[in-house]
């Protein structure tokens, strides 16, 4: 750690881990409900569990991205954050809004719009919170000694993510328009601006971990985010096939979304090549695992599994089935969860001064969570394909089909247990690093 104010990041990461833990618990509630054990129905019905599960996911990822920005921007801009106090205010308000929303979901206080369940009044608080965050980050960046591409891409991603939240707040009487603009948030986040955030973090990590020249890494960063927008913006059309808008989207969405995997492929090749090329090998092996892992697993989850159902001919059958859930899990895990875990693994030893770079526990956390998640993906996938076949080809009733696939949810629960064990090990590692402190300051280090 080079600047004292970078320590703020620790608390964002801690909040992130706490919410991640809760997210998993609600995932289990849904997994059991799908398997036929819905004992909690009267207290936590499925729609509550689901809204909590997905919103906690988004909030813990955002908290992780914010922590990443608070860690990365001072180092890239070569100065302290403009205000540490405001950063803590922002942290606490983020936690408060998040908790109020999550508690509200248990009392029918929500808006049933997938992924955007936060009720409008709270949306305004989210906006204020994010403005505060952006204010701190952008002023630090512009007052800084240098403006690197890495910092610019990361900040641009965060800024656009904030702007794109707004279309989701537009009120519509039409379900079609509601859904149309909901995708401006959901799709353009995960297949657009969040990739900038991921790219920025990845580039920072590769510079630190491999020692490859910044100019080379940042050039490829532009190519990657270029590919992202080139395919991802018009690729939004893959959500417009069957929701009551023009057929033109079948062609546009089909072609451009089919190109989206290129950005993820580029990201994977980029990370692996920079690692090969790098001469200086950073001792923090765990951070390297997570960094390369994110680049590779995101290509599988988002790129390959996204491609698997993105053409209109296929999507006609898979749209809105468990096939979507299969892809959703590995894509979110590979791209965004893993990149957050990567930046935490990298920065934690630097903030706390405890250089636990290599441990069996750390490596077990990586492998168990990844193998568990891949198993979960397979379970969802098998259930999804069976569902598509029986329901949409054989024309069987929804609930009859659900009974047929119950067994795959037992498999899901087993794999999820492995996954959770890995994550608990990660949490223990996090805890063992202790608190951030000023003794960990190393102003001259290259790490």
């Amino acid at each position: 750690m080079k600047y004292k104010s970078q320590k703020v990041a620790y608390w964002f990461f801690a909040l992130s881990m706490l919410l991640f833990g809760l997210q998993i618990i609600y995932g289990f509630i849904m997994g059991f409900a799908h398997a036929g054990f819905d004992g909690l129905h009267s207290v936590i019905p499925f729609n509550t569990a689901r809204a909590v599960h997905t919103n906690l996911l988004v909030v813990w990822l955002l908290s992780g991205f914010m922590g990443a920005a608070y860690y990365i921007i001072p180092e890239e801009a070569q100065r302290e954050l403009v205000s540490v106090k405001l950063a803590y205010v922002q942290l606490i308000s983020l936690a408060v809004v998040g908790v109020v929303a999550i508690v509200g979901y248990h009392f029918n206080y929500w808006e049933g719009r997938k992924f955007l369940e936060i009720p409008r009044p709270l949306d305004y608080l989210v906006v204020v919170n994010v403005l505060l965050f952006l204010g701190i980050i952008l002023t630090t960046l512009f007052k800084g000694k240098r403006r690197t591409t890495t910092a610019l891409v990361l900040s641009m991603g965060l800024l656009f993510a904030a702007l794109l939240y707004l279309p989701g707040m537009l009120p519509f009487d039409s379900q079609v328009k509601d859904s149309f603009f909901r995708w401006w948030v959901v799709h353009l986040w995960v297949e657009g601006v969040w990739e900038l955030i991921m790219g920025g973090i990845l580039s920072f990590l590769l510079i630190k971990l491999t020692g490859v020249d910044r100019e080379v890494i940042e050039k490829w960063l532009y190519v990657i985010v270029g590919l992202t927008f080139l395919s991802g913006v018009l690729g939004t059309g893959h959500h417009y096939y069957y929701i009551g808008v023009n057929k033109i989207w079948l062609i546009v969405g089909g072609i451009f979304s089919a190109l989206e995997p290129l950005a993820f492929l580029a990201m994977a090749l980029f990370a692996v090549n920079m690692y090969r090329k790098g001469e200086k090998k950073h001792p923090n092996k765990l951070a390297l695992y997570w960094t390369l892992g994110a680049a590779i697993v995101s290509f599988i989850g988002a790129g390959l599994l996204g491609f698997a159902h993105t053409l209109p001919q296929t999507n006609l059958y898979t749209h809105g089935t468990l096939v979507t859930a299969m892809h959703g899990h590995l894509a979110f895990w590979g791209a965004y969860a893993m990149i957050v875990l990567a930046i935490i693994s990298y920065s934690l030893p630097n903030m706390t001064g405890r250089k636990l770079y290599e441990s069996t526990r750390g490596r077990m956390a990586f492998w168990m969570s990844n193998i568990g998640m891949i198993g979960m993906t397979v379970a969802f996938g098998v259930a999804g394909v069976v569902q598509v076949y029986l329901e949409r080809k054989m024309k069987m009733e929804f609930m009859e089909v659900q009974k047929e696939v119950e067994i795959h949810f037992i498999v899901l629960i087993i794999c999820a247990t492995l996954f959770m064990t890995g994550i608990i090990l990660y949490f223990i590692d996090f805890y063992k690093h202790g608190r951030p402190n000023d003794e960990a300051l190393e102003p001259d280090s290259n790490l």
Partner: protein
Amino acid sequence: MLSKKQARAFFLGGTVVTFLIFIGLTIFSFTKAQDQSNDGNITEAVVRGKVLWEENNCMGCHTIMGEGAYYAPELTKVIDRRGEGYIRAVLTSPVDWAPNGRKMVAYGFTQEEADDLIAFFDWIDDIDLNGFDTVVSPLSKDDN
């Protein structure tokens, strides 16, 4: 070899161009001649139905037009499939509706609220979904 400057130009150029096309296509697909959203037929009852749909997060279990959760049946064309009486019984039921074991929340809606939700489903049923409705609702009257 590609320089960093060229790489940046590719990024900025590609972004601006595709975004403009995206906005253009959005406007195009909502012009009168191209519109297939059935928005012209939205009544006050449909709007009230949509509000109920959202306030109770029905999408947290069901899908509609293929969007939502995968725990409960797709509701596009559900009126065609089940008939209005059945839907009304589900919506107004004071106990958890669970004919196949899996439970729905007992909303106990009033008759008026049920009317509004039915109006909402009816409106959905007349949207041109580019053929999705024939795949997703095997029991829809059109193809049996």
